[in-house]
């Protein structure tokens, strides 16, 4: 009976311990707050935006390229200015955040799933399966991700689905390598021997025993990778190979402002860039702190 109680309270107390450890760094706590705010803005973009930036009926060409703080013809203020079509930049950024984060998180989650399956397969099956998978991973990781994504997009063409495919292709190898490394260590531990002696099937051992133990290091890698994916998507969109004009991510907004930058209208590129930067820095800081907290060597 007392055993059952300890088991049931263990997760709650370790979660509290985790929260306490995480809160030791004020910067990381602030970053988490900022990240939550960004997520909230991205989720509620249609509700909190001053205008719907992609409803042409709401745009007025007379408002085009207004400086930040200027008043619109209808009397309200464009706090971050407008672009060449009279679109309120603040609303465009809210919607852009939604698209950028959506693409980044979706591709990371799918790549994570693929990486876990492939990495576990390599570690547990071994032999030629492992050799082929790891050769492929090595081959891919020896090229920079921007190059692989560029090749893929040159081949696949433009589109939201295509950029997600490119981002997945770029990321899966990291996870596969991390999972395999962690799973190889776990495989040699006693609890796996015990599970084998109990007669559990290999699938059950891998999924129920090994996988939960390799997840913590993966969470850290995945967090930082979301930031990476967002930056990569923005770069590809800037190069004209990413998002189509119908789904303007932050990268595409920056790219649109590039032509006006030289005539001194900085805000069309500047503010989406700041939004991108704050998002990436916040995610990286949270990822850094997660790594420190989850790292058993530092405890």
């Amino acid at each position, binding site marked *: 009976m007392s055993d059952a109680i300890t088991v049931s309270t263990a997760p709650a107390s370790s979660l509290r311990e985790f929260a306490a450890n995480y809160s030791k760094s004020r910067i990381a706590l602030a970053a988490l707050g900022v990240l939550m705010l960004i997520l909230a803005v991205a989720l509620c973009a249609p509700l909190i935006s001053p205008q719907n930036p992609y409803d042409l009926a709401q745009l007025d060409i007379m408002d085009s390229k207004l400086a930040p703080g200027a008043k619109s013809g209808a009397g309200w203020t464009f706090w971050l200015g407008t672009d060449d079509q009279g679109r309120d930049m603040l609303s465009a950024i809210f919607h852009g955040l939604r698209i950028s984060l959506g693409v980044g998180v979706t591709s990371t989650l799918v790549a994570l799933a693929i990486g876990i399956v492939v990495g576990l397969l390599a570690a547990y099956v071994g032999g030629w399966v492992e050799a082929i998978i790891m050769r492929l991973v090595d*081959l891919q990781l*020896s*090229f*920079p991700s*921007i*190059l692989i994504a*560029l*090749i*893929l997009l*040159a*081949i696949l*063409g433009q589109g939201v689905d295509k950029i997600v495919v490119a981002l997945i292709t770029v990321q899966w190898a990291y996870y596969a390598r991390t999972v395999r490394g962690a799973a190889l260590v776990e495989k040699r531990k006693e609890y796996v021997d015990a599970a084998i002696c109990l007669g559990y099937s290999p699938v059950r051992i891998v999924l129920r025993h090994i996988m939960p133990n390799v997840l913590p290091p993966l969470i850290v890698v995945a967090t930082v990778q979301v*930031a990476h994916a967002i*930056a990569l998507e*923005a*770069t590809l969109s*800037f*190069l*004209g*190979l990413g998002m189509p004009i119908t789904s303007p991510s932050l*990268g595409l907004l*920056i790219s649109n*402002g*590039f032509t006006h*930058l*030289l005539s*001194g209208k*900085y805000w069309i*590129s*500047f503010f989406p*860039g700041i939004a*991108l*930067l704050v998002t*990436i*820095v916040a995610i*990286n*800081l949270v990822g850094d702190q997660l790594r420190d907290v989850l790292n058993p060597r530092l405890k």
Partner: protein
Amino acid sequence: MLFYILRRLAQSLLVLLVMSALVFVGVFAIGNPVDILINPQADQAEIARVTASLGLDQPVWVQYWNFISAAFSGDLGKSFASNVPAMQLILQRMPATVELALSAMVMAIIIGLPLGLWAGLRPDSFAAKSIMAGSILGFSLPTFWVGLMLIMIFSVWLGWLPSTGRGATVEVLGLHLSIFTWDGLKHMLMPATNLALFKLSLLIRLTRAGTREAMVQDYVRFARAKGVPENRVVSVHVLKNILIPIVTIIGLEFGSVIAFAIITETVFAWPGMGKLLIDSINVLDRPVIVAYLMIIVFLFVIINLAVDILYTTLDPRVRLSGARA
């Protein structure tokens, strides 16, 4: 040892072949370049004639075979858009890219090493913390956006530096280089800074980590006990030891600098290979895309091969495990 190098060479060749097939078949799948090249009013016969003259009426594998057999003699096909051999087009642009990449690398080393050393020697000082915060920023800032901001500040607001192009060049040993003219240097300063930023952050972190590890080693304590002045301990004893991994990384990263130059060249309209690639993708100039990718893949394979062989000669443990695997 010789056997290992031969085997590694064969592996690299295989990688090249596989990549060339992937790239070729992949690039073959994109659009029909005839649609872009030909006058929209052309009739069927004209379209068929152009298609045949470009060799596009053959099956993919025949086209691949023609490509690969020609590639071994250094011929990577003719650009559809300008009718110039793709290889020549890329080689013309190569000095600009290599010059930019090398300048960025040198910049990253000159600035990164001292800053990293400083941060490693006094890890708790305010300067060290600022340097590390700066390096996090350097990792997080998207390259293209930093480029835009540099243009905004130094070209549009201050008017100090030109925002596009390469400026005046002089011919040195048959290559057109801009580093030797004042105008060329002014054009290069912003793109090189932009490209250097990411590697600079990486170098700062590497040097700092290396320095922190080295400072607690016995040889440092011994040098101090011997009465070696602190400056000499750092500049001779510590620096020599941390340089080995740093030099390796610098070598390994050179390929990625060339790849990242694609972004910087697009932002600053720098007439290098990367800009050529983006322009070629936009007009579906297949031979140039394939040729660029083949050259880059070749470069990476060579760099990886060199680093692997260097490792095995430096570290016997790698050689043993490599021979077994």
